[in-house]
């Protein structure tokens, strides 16, 4: 514990990422899926900033900011879609939206 390692951050980010993936794949509720996507994006942000600090460059932070902006847009549109689905089907259960079956 006498030195800060890069891997600390990367592994934390990996945990967040995997949890997010699990949420996206296993959750029925569309809003929970959106939250899980936020987890994934945050994992990415941690990576970006950590690598930026590692390389002594500001670019990581800049890109993290961009990702945050894109995530905000994504949540807005995503929630709008969820609302639309809810309005049409009275449910946000993704198992009900299984229309990909040929």
């Amino acid at each position, binding site marked *: *514990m*006498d*030195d*800060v*390692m890069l*891997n*600390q*951050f*990367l*592994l*934390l980010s*990996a*945990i967040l*990422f*995997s*949890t*997010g*993936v*699990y*949420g996206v*794949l*296993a*959750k*029925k*509720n569309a*809003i*929970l899926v959106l*939250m*899980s996507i*936020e*987890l994934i994006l*945050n994992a990415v*942000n*941690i990576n970006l*900033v950590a690598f930026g*600090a*590692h*390389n*002594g*460059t*500001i*670019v*990581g932070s*800049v890109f*993290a*900011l961009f990702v*945050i*902006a894109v995530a*905000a*847009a994504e*949540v*807005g*549109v995503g*929630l*709008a879609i*969820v*609302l639309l689905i*809810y309005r049409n089907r009275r449910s*946000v259960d993704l*198992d009900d939206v299984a229309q990909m079956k040929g």
Partner: protein
Amino acid sequence: MVLAADAFAQNVFFYVIAAAMAFSAIRVVTVKNVVHAAMYLVMVLAGVGAQFILLASEFVAATQVLVYIGAVVVLVLFGVMLTRAKLGQDVNLTNDYWWLGAVAAVMIFGVMAYSLLDYYGDEPLDTAGAESQLVDNTGQVSDAIFGQYLVPFEIISVLLLGALVGAIVLARKD
């Protein structure tokens, strides 16, 4: 590094926050109530902000708190309310093939952890010379965004506008 002088304290902070984050993240995807899940998500997002401060990126940390906790989570809560999720227990939030997702998640974590440990090992975060360049983080970020990355910045603002319009079009009743 702002706190690099005291690596031990920094590590203590890191592990405490990281443990809370991991716990909260897992709760987000396992808890049986959507509103609770949103609250745990706030914990995770705040933790990420704290990690940003540990990484000496205070501007990103501030943005994280403002945008995520201030806006995104509130949006999500609005979504929860508008879709009338029950405020009590929501029994079946998980689908029947969750094990498939669990397998995928564990495998992804395994591969990532293996390759990270294999490649970076004990490499310190703070490589030589990196420290001095990150003083005045906010100033540098603004220089970069409004200088070198001006065009992406503008494009992102247009994207936000588009998302705004799109969200309104999608969500309004008519």
